[in-house]
Structures are given as C-alpha cells and as structure tokens.
C-alpha cells in the first residue's frame, strides 16, 4: 500500500476513534481507575504503568489519561460547533450578499430617510418594553400599547405617502455586498486574540459560551471565502438560466449556488476545525480560554507552567494534539484532491 493511502486510512481511523471517544467520554471516564476528580494527595504523580495513574496526574491530582479522554470531547465540540456557526454565518452573510451583489436590493429613499424612526420603534418595542416593564407579557399584549403601535404605524404610512408625494420618489440601491465587505474589513482589522480576551473576561467562558464566541468571532474569514466562491458561481450561465426560468434570488442561491460551493465549503470547514482546536488549546494554555472547571487538552498543558518538571503534562496532550492536527490536514488534502 502506498504511503499516501496508509496516512489517509490511519487519519480516518484516528479521527473516527477520537469522535467515538468524544461521544463516550463520560462513560469511559466513569470506569474504574478513570476519574477526573481532584485528589490533593496525589499531585504531579509521574506516569507509571503499574499505578492507577498510567499517564500521571496534574496539579490538582487528576488523572491525565481521564482528562485527555474528556478533553477530546471538549476539543471536538469547540472545533466542530464553532466552525459550524462560523460557516453558517459566512454562508448567510457573506455568501448571500456576495451572490445577490450591489445592484439588486432596491429601497425607496423615503425609507432611508425614515430609518432612524424605525430604529427607535424597534428599540422601544423590542428592547425597552420587554426589559423595563415588569410582567411585561401582560402589558405587551394589552390593547392600549397595541393601539399606540397601530397609530404610530398609521402615522408613518401617512408620512411616507406625503414624502413620496411632495419631496422625493427616488429609489436607491442598497449595495449589500459593499456594506458587508467593509463591515468584515473593519471587523477583522481588530485583532481577534485581543477581542477574545476582552469578551471572555466579560462573559463566563463555559464550554457553550466559549464555542459560541469563537464561532461568532471567526465568521469574517469564512464569509470572505464563501463570497469569493459565490462571485465565481454567479457568472455561470446556469445561475442566469435560473433567473430566466423564474427563480427568485434566494431560491436560485439555495438551488444553484449552494450545492456548487459545497466542495469549497467542506475543505474550508475541515481545515477550520483544526485551526479552532489549536486556538482553543492555545487560549486555555495561556489561561484565558475555557473556565477553570472545564477540562481540555490546553488546560492540562497549562499545569506544566506551575511545575516545569512535569513533562508528561506537555508530552501526552501535545502528542494527541499534533496527531489530530496532522489527521485533519490529511483529510483536508484528500478532500481537495477529490474535488479537483
């Protein structure tokens, strides 16, 4: 068997094993001899095949092997779910706006003039009322407030009609793609590392929060990539043929553009998962990642900072991290080759 096949199959087997381990982590960790509980009598125990702690213990006296098993779940969860969020945002924001382009969404100038009012209305009914009124459910649904809303809408309608009649009827394009692009540029000019540190200090970084934050903060690059793909696909004639048979923009996007950009998205996703697993490990190692009570490979490695003699805290999680990375990259390469 050629070496490329060997590496491919071993990657698949390794990732499959990790995945199963991630799913069954709690069960494995609950087995005898496996425990992530602290044991302050057994701090920094060296790896020893004969003892209970095959791979040693960390600064809290927890079993390294058990932590690595449970940490698998953390890493995979953070990697896959936050990449999923990021890709989804990328498709919706970057892909759709790139596909639709600058010269499609048309709005009467009136609405742009009145947009501050709309915003105020939205803020009042959507944020102020629900937050500041006790028992707001009752008030919200009671008739005086609704009546006020109806009156406000009527006044607005009248205003729109008047402006259209007297001042301007002009229709302007909203350059969706342009706006999104500038927004992404501003967004990505802020260093992500610093942003993450700032945000994590504000919110308790539980596993779920942390995953969500990373997903939301890394959508910029996926949006740009998917947008580039969409702009390429937009020029294909089957897209135009779609409009010609009467498809709308969204339908054309879902029917034609999305299936054809899927290969690129899959490659991007695969590499992205690897990157985020690494990012999580880095942040946790530095102590600004996941909350201390969460168990992860990076957190485990952070223990070595307290005791530089504890090489096993770096070596074992390090090996699993590197092998995971290599496997993911091998898979990504395979996906690339397959698509070409």
């Amino acid at each position, binding site marked *: 068997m050629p070496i490329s096949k060997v590496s491919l199959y071993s990657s698949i087997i390794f990732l499959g094993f990790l995945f199963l381990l991630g799913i069954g982590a709690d069960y494995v960790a609950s087995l005898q001899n496996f425990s992530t509980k602290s044991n302050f009598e057994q701090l920094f125990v060296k790896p020893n095949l004969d003892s209970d702690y095959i791979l040693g213990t960390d600064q809290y006296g927890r079993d390294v092997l058990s932590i690595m098993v449970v940490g698998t779940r953390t890493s995979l969860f953070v990697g896959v779910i936050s990449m999923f969020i990021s890709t989804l945002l990328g498709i919706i924001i970057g892909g759709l706006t790139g596909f639709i382009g600058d010269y499609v969404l048309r709005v009467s100038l009136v609405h742009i003039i009145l947009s501050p009012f709309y915003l105020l209305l939205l803020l009042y009914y959507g944020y102020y009322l629900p937050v500041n009124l006790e028992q707001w459910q009752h008030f919200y649904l009671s008739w005086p407030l609704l009546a006020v809303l109806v009156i406000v809408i009527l006044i607005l309608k009248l205003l729109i009609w008047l402006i259209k009649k007297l001042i301007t009827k002009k229709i302007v394009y909203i350059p969706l793609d342009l706006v999104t692009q500038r927004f992404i540029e501003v967004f990505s000019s802020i260093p992500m590392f610093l942003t993450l540190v700032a945000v994590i200090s504000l919110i308790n970084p539980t596993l779920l929060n942390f995953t969500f934050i990373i997903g939301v903060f890394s959508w910029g690059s996926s949006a740009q990539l998917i947008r580039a793909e969409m702009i390429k696909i937009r020029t294909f004639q089957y897209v135009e043929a779609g409009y*010609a048979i009467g*498809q709308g923009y969204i339908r054309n996007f879902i029917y034609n553009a999305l299936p054809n950009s899927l290969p690129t998205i899959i490659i991007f996703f695969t590499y992205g998962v690897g990157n985020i697993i690494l990012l999580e490990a880095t942040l946790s190692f530095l102590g600004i990642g996941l909350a201390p009570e969460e168990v992860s490979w990076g957190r485990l490695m952070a223990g070595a900072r307290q005791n530089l003699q504890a090489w096993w805290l770096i070596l074992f999680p390090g090996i699993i991290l590197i092998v995971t990375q290599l496997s993911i990259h091998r898979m990504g390469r395979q996906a690339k080759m397959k698509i070409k």
Partner: protein
Amino acid sequence: MMTIIKAYYSDIITRASLMQKTEKIIKEPLLEIDGLSTHFKTEHSIVKAVNNISFKINKGETVGIVGESGSGKSVTALSVMNLIPQPPGKIAKGSIIFNSPTLGKIDLVKLSDKELRQIRGNEISMIFQEPMSSLNPVYTCGDQVMEAILVHQKISRIEAQKRTLHLFDQVKLPNPKAIFKAYPHQISGGQIQRVMIAMAMSCNPSLLIADEPTTALDVTVQASILELMEQLRDEHDTAIMFITHDLGVVAEVADRVIVMYRGKIVESGSVWKIFSDPQHPYTKGLLACRPRLDIKLKHLPTVSDFMGVDQKGKIVEKEQNKYKSVGEALLLNVLSEDEIHKKQQFLIKQPPILEVNNLKKHYPTRKNLFGKPVEFMKAVDDVSFNVYPGETLGLVGESGCGKTTLGRTILRLLEPTSGDIIFEGKSILGYSNRELRSLRKEIQIIFQDPYSSLNPKKTIGDIIMEPMRIHSILKNRKQRKEKALELLKKVQLESKHLNRYPHEFSGGQRQRICIARTLALQPKFIICDESVSALDVSVQAQVLNLLNELKEEFNFTYIFISHDLSVIKFVADRIIVMKEGEIVETGFPNLLFDNPEQAYTKQLIQAIPKGNLEEIRKKILKRSQNRSAPST
C-alpha cells in the same frame, strides 16, 4: 432546380485541367508522419486520441486538418511539437520525420529536450486558438516577440527590436511602434492574433502549425487573417498545418485536406477533390450539414443521414442511405422561392407579438467626482423593431455589437436605460418582481454554452422539473416527472437519462436538455442566444432541425441571435444586422443576401468563407499564379 445542379457541378468539367496545375507544385516532403498513435491514460481506460495516422506535408504547402471536437486534430498538432502533457498523454507508436534545414532528417519523437527546444519556435512554430490567453498580460507585445527572437538567435536587443518592428509591419499591424509598446489587453483580438503570427514567423520557420487560429475571431477579421497567412506562406515558402473545424475556412486556405474522425483519418486529398467528390460518408455528411448561403433548405441533412456507427464504434455506411451524395441531400430539401415569399407575406400581416421601441442600454464607463457617470458604453443604442408571431427573427452581428445585451434586455435579465418593450400589447418595463416571474413563463432563453448553463449538481430530471415547480404548472412530483419524460422524448433523449448528471452528456445532448427545460414552461417566445455556436457542425445541424421542428409543432416565435450568417440564413424568416449597438439593416434573408443595401452588410457577407466550388476554383488559380510568379 436545374440551375442549382448546374451551379454545383459545372466546375467539375474544368476539374481535370485544374488538377494538373496543382499537381505540379508538389515538392519534397517536409514532414512525414507515419503510424502515429497518441494515447491518454485515464483512471479506467486508455483513450486513443490519435490512432495510427499517416500523412505528409510538403514544403510550402497548406494542409488543412478538419474534424469535430474529439477527433484528435489538436492532439496531432501537439504531438508534432512534442507538447503532449506527459503523463497522462504518451506518443505510443509511430514516427514524425521532420526534414529540418539545419539538422537534416530527424524523428521528432526521439529527440532530446534540448534539441526539441531548438526546433520549437525556430523551425516549427505554432499559433493557438485563443488570442486573449496566448500572450502574457504582464509584458508588452513587442517584448514578447523580441523574446521569441532572442531565444533562438544570438543578436543584440536593438537588432531584435528592429526585426520585431519589421515583422509587425509585415503582418500589417497599424502603427507598429505603438503596438510594440502596447500590452495585450490594449489591442483587439485580431491584432493580438497578428502579433502571434509575427511571433510565429519571427524565426522564419519552415512549418507553421495553426490550431484553430481564427475560430475566436469575427468573420471580417478572420478573412483578413487568412489572407495574411496565405501571403506570408507564399513569401517565405512556409508549410502550414491548418487545423480547424470549419470546412469553409479550409476551402479558403488549404491545398490539401485531411478529414479526421475519432482519432483516425477517414479521407484525404486535394481540396478540390474533397469538396467536389467526397468519398467517405462522414465527409459527405460534414459537407452537407453546413448551412448554406446560396439556397434555403427546409431541413438540414445531418451526418447520420449518411452514416451510422455500430456498437464497436466502427463507421458503417447505412444500408438504406437517405441520400447518396451531397448534391442529392441538398436538392431534396430546397425550399422554393414561392414558398418563402408566401410565408413572409403571411407573417408580417399579423399584429406583432413583441415591439421594441427606442431601446437603449448604456453602461457607465467613467464617473466624475460625485459618482455621476459622464461617459457611457452604448451597448444597445436606440433600437426599434417588431417581431411577428410564428417567425424566426435572426439577429446577426460581430462580437461586441450588442446583440446579446439586446436579447437579455428583452428578457429583463438586464434593466434597459430607456425605451420600451411591449409584449402582447403590454409594456413589460413596469413589471414588478412577481409579474416578471410570470413573464418568464412566456419568454424563455436558450443559452450559448451548454456546458455552463446546466447546474452540475442536479440531475436532468431535477433540472427539467424545476421550472414547472416554480410556476406550479403540474400538481405533484409524479405528474411533473411524467411530463419531464415526455419532454425528453421530444428532444430525442431517452427516459433512462432522467437520473443522470449533466457531465455525462455531450454538448449537443446538453443543449437538448436546455431546450427541454425551456419547453417545460410552454413559452410563446424563445430567445436563442448563440444556441448552436458552441456545437460541432454535425450536432449544430441536428439542433437547428430540432428547433425548427419544435417551432412548427408549438408555433413558437424565435429571436435567433448568432454571429454566423449562414446559420442565420438557414433559420431566419427576417434578419436584423447590428453594429456597435445600432441596427444597420433589416430585411428578408433572400433579399438581404442577394442585394445588401449597406456597405457593412456587404462586407460581412463577403467575409464569410463560402466553401463552394466556384470560390475554391478561384483560390486554386490565384495560388498557382502566385507561386509560379517569382520563379518565372
């Protein structure tokens, strides 16, 4: 009808004397290809792109290699240059003996890389099809030609520059000094092709391989390039291997013609012999299926009328051939003048189905400081015409004349700048998105490129059912599927094709799938935007026949957009000639072709390679005169 027979066969009488004249020119062979086979290895099998072919090219002779896509003509050219990508390609067998002026007789297959480099570009040079991508965009045109000279000859840069300017002058580029400093994107496609020819001729090669050099060019430009190549050949005594799919072009330039089909040579002979008396059924089919300029046919003969292919891929002459010869195939299908006239009168008496009034589509090319456009590219400029129900309106013009923009604006895939489009008595410009969508049911478009107009990730069934689903034409999936099967049958495809993906089909089949998708909506009005331009002639004939049959059956109205006047002549009931966004001339085909009013139309008609015997005879005479002139 007798006149046509006469026109077709009159020249055969003079044939014998002519043949003798051309025969005399033959000199010693320059290139001898013997038993050449080039194979490509794919995952599953070996593709024999070129399969055991042998031919010769003599000094100073033009040999035209004709064939449809996949016939192996380009691979032959690349094999001669030894430029086959290896792997997957490989010259499996055979020899290519080149009679080099410096090295003597050598086998190109066995040469080392270093020796090959000496030959390439120096003694054998090549011109490619796509002018836009064959020059490097980061160097000026002059630089690139100089580079070609400097690689092979040890002369100073100043000397090379002088030579380049002289070459530019020879290939009749206007203002050689300006072109020398220009980047490829700053000059037109025809000019780029001239620069390419200058580069190819820079080292005075004894063999020039031209791989579809004029395919991407407009007819008028093509005519001038062909003339130039011929002139250079006679001046420098260069042999040309001219590869093309267009029989008309071959008739213009070649001394001898080689017809290739599926990697094999099916027939070869002098241009006169091939055109006046083709022997192989495939050649007959090819000759017959070209739309003609001189007569109007009801139905185009196709290659399959002449021959069939058995299961092993071997060509068999059909037992009950529809036609015996090219002449017969044409004669049986001629439409008489009376029929044409009657139809024309009937069509224009009706109220028009579509009126286009003063339509303009301008693109801003420059904007001032405040984003207000100050200069425009006038893609369509003040165009007005009517289309009558049941007619085919041919829209013809060279690239960039705005014909495609016009088609798309009528469909409202593009928004017009000003003007009005009235469809069935209602202006469609004010339509909202929803109204537009229902309009799309009535007006449909068939695109040029069958390869990119089908979504590669959907099955054929999906593609055909999608329009029905959008407009909820039938109630459920089962009914739609039945309808899709019916449509597939209508466009001569089989029901087993329903679950396949577009990449499994050939160009012609894909174009038929596009037609089926269009039919699914039962439109009244179809815009065919260069719908047959990307197809081979034989497939083109089939698709054109299909379009005509469907028109008869469903009483469609077509706007047929094309750059090819002969195709337009075959399909159209009326013709509009466009140039630079404006209508130059409108008229019935027979009148327009016999008696064009505008100079531009005349020029356009003259530039088409006719490929008829009268023209070939003239060419051969002219050539033999040119050749004998210097020696006497």
